[in-house]
């Protein structure tokens, strides 16, 4: 087997030098799925609390910069370096149909966003499907990065990434942990003793992996078919660990380790809220850098809201109850509603989108945006009704040239399953299948959106 030269030592020197960039030869293509003319990166983002529809809809001519527009961050070149108006597409009219058919609704609907399945579904979410089943994660030290802000809770309603078999994947919510998982092993120092120690640890790690594989195989041989997915996930975790031990990075500047003093607490309800903005920025930056360094090609980010962050004095302490639950929409007919409640929810929505704009900025700075598929979804349309209908969808990135962006798509009120967006994404990555997800009604999981 031909191995690419290890570059850890030189990268380590770069990291120690804090900012200098090393120009190294990029490794060759490592995945059939990351082929020319196809996108190379997938990012899924969870957006809390639905959307203030009245201020989310672009106006004529895809105007997203009107006063109080929720989408304004994507036109804010002063803050984010450029306007991303031509790199985003908004979709109205998607329903979480599989969730509604299977009783996975309301806040639990986040389960459906990337899986296209209710809570009894056994398929992997789109990110894991692409990374593990379709090879997008091949050759990467990490097959994916699953991140969040505020809550590590892997319960229903708190996750968007699911393994094959249907189990929720835990999120990393501490940027220091994100750095540890994604970058720390390449920061080994230039000291020969440190390098020798790292090499010895790698050797020990390989021996351990060999041992665990044999043990897992012995257990698998005795286990019934019903346990196959669980044990396969374990085997996947072992492969991931091996890739981490063997991992090689692309030419990049390794980020410095986040300064934990700037976010002493990270958990919601445990005093972490005032630091969520810092944490979110770090998670966003680390995702972009992980893609740039070839740590992974797939990431998800479960965002939190502004509750108790005291970042926006115009918002009450509890955004969930006092903003999302109080929202009074005018609905599609545009009659009635409470404009004051639109404004409040729009402030929360705009904050969320500002973080996605930051992510687009970071990707653009690293010349990654054109090859990225980013989708940001919320589990609700109208949050006051906990509605699984008409969820807001934001699609961004270049999709490897397969997205016609800078426009709004209105699918109407007929209830288009979000599965169709997932099918469109998988097809952009070269997966020919016309369906994604699981539901009793095949019509829910079949079909795609024309986004090109």
């Amino acid at each position: 087997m031909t191995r690419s030269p290890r570059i850890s030592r030189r990268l380590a020197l770069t990291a120690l030098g804090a900012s200098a960039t090393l120009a190294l030869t990029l490794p060759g293509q490592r995945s059939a799925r990351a082929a020319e003319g196809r996108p190379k990166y997938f990012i899924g983002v969870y957006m809390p609390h639905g959307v203030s529809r009245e201020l989310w809809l672009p106006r004529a001519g895809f105007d997203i910069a009107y006063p109080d527009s929720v989408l304004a961050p994507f036109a804010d070149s002063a803050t984010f370096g450029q306007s991303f108006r031509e790199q985003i597409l908004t979709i109205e009219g998607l329903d979480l149909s599989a969730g509604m058919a299977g009783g996975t609704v309301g806040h639990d609907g986040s389960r459906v966003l990337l899986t296209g399945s209710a809570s009894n579904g056994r398929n992997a979410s789109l990110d894991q499907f692409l990374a593990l089943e379709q090879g997008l994660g091949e050759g990467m030290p990490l097959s994916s990065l699953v991140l969040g802000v505020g809550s590590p809770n892997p319960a229903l309603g708190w996750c968007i990434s699911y393994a094959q078999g249907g189990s929720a994947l835990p999120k990393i919510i501490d940027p220091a942990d994100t750095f540890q998982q994604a970058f720390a092993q390449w920061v080994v120092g230039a000291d020969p003793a440190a390098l020798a120690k790292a090499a010895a640890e790698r050797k020990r790690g390989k021996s351990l992996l060999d041992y665990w594989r044999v043990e897992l195989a012995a257990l698998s041989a005795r286990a019934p078919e019903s346990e196959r997915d669980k044990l396969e996930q374990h085997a996947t975790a072992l492969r991931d660990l091996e890739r981490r031990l063997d991992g090689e990075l692309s030419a990049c500047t390794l980020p410095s380790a986040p300064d934990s003093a700037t976010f002493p607490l990270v958990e919601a309800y445990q005093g972490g809220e005032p630091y969520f903005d810092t944490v979110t920025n770090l998670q966003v930056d680390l995702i972009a850098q992980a893609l740039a360094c070839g740590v992974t090609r797939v990431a998800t980010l479960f965002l939190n809201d502004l509750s108790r962050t005291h970042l926006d004095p115009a918002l009450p302490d509890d955004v969930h109850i006092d903003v999302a639950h109080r929202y009074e929409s005018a609905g599609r007919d545009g009659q009635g509603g409470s404009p004051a409640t639109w404004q409040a929810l729009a402030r929360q929505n705009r904050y969320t989108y500002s973080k996605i704009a930051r992510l687009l900025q970071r990707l653009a700075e690293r010349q990654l945006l054109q090859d990225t598929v980013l989708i940001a979804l919320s589990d609700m349309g109208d949050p006051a009704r906990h509605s699984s209908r008409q969820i807001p969808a934001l699609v961004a990135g270049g999709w490897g040239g397969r997205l016609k962006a800078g426009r709004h798509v209105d699918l109407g009120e007929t209830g288009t399953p979000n599965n169709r967006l997932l099918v469109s994404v998988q097809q952009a990555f070269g997966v020919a299948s016309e369906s994604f997800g699981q539901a009793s009604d095949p019509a829910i999981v079949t079909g795609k959106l024309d986004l090109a």
Partner: protein
Amino acid sequence: MKPRALSSSLRSWLLALLVCACGSTNDDAESPPAAESLLAPALRRLSVAELEQAARSVLGAPVNLRGSLPPDALQNDFSRNIAQSVDSLTLRQLYDATRSASEALPLDDPAYPRCAALAQPSDTSCSGELIGKLATLAFRRPPSTEELARLQALFAVGASGGTFRDGATLVLRALLASPQLLYESSLGEGPPQHGVRMLGQSELASALSFMISGTPPDAELLSAAAAGRLASGSERYGQAVRLLGGPQAIPQFQRFVEEWLGLGQLPQLAKSSTVTTDFAALSRAMQSETRSFVADVLAAQHGSLVALFAGGYSFVPDELAPLYGIQPVPAGSRVVLRGMGRVGILQQGSFLSVFAHEGESAPVLRGKAVLTRVLCRTIRPPQEFGIDLMFPAPDANATTRQRFERHAIDPVCKGCHAQLDPVGFSFENFDAVGRERSTDAAQAVDTRGSVTLNGAPLELKDSVELSDAIAQSEELRSCVARQVVRFASGRKDQPAEDAFVTEMAALPLAWRSSLLGLFLSYVKSDGFAWRVGQ
């Protein structure tokens, strides 16, 4: 002082009751039970708390995994469940955490072979002895010859060019993240008989110990397994009673009650500054109250469900006394609360805070918690009926009850809310943190409600009457029996639950209305010991 373990006199009483705690146990392996109500074989990844105990058992010292591993994914409200898996993040974190823990291996501890502290890396006799001991602890059974050989080879890799300790450390790392340690196996052993198989002796030992105390089996239990004694339901019963005297039994029952009733959410709650300015301190006191109370119910009330729901007393920490409207009492003192609106766990701050919003009471959440968690009823979410939720708008002139009564006018909504709301309304004298109140929106609170128990409608003056009625109801006893099966088996399996509920119905009332009785009966039952054959 709250009890830390069940007393020997209580355990003697439990042993004396063995004769009546018969259940449908089959001690005769020649005639296995019917397959219809048995669970499927499974592998259960240990919960984080169990992993800590398992690692501690091997290492001989406490290991903090809670701080590094992702939290448990609950299934059917319990952290013990067969849906938990070893995902990439968990394995990477486990790899890092066990690496540092293994470096602290205390080879000079008397628990390890005496040769280990000074042995040379080439001393295969000593390494073999050490590996055998560590692997037995990790696997919770004697390792096979092949398994020992693989570990010996790993020892050689670790010790190569290094020390005996290096070899031992690598073996320890291998064991602490070994699939044999991470999963509790309930696959069964031997060829199926009539489509069913009994769990292996080691599997029985692990299942029993993790269920009763949340720890791997101790030496006595492993010895019973080695002697093949655990096929006997009576032996399992006796071993379980013995484990109830250990230090981990009460924490395990506290965990059961907290997860069953959703009280584990308490540390993840925030409350509005309009109801309290220091909920963090209050919630710690609430957790302490509930844990002390559950411990007392087990140790002093024989695990009585009547005491749990309607005992009429509690243990109120100082921080909670003002909320309850009482003067502080000496720590650990039992406080009689009957007559003050609080008779059991449903009127404790923990339950009332978890099932409330940040700034106001939540009759629907409280009603749903009682109906689904305490009585095991199924309430379908409104979206399944095509109904979008509509939260009542704030109205300074209307009580919470009045605002919620409006939303149940819809004939479709009423189908469920006619059950949910009257139960939740009976708690309306408690605000978002469980503080008693007499008015809401400047009007007198109305705590009248109703519930149907065992098919009979019952009008309620308040939640005290609700608790008193539930405490005596067969529905509660059946539901707790189901919850015990879910907790023990790590899944929701209707036939297995139905079978255990049927067995329990034949037992004396005092036995089936006791947490201890239900746990011990399940340990003794065929459902615990047998699985559908593969």
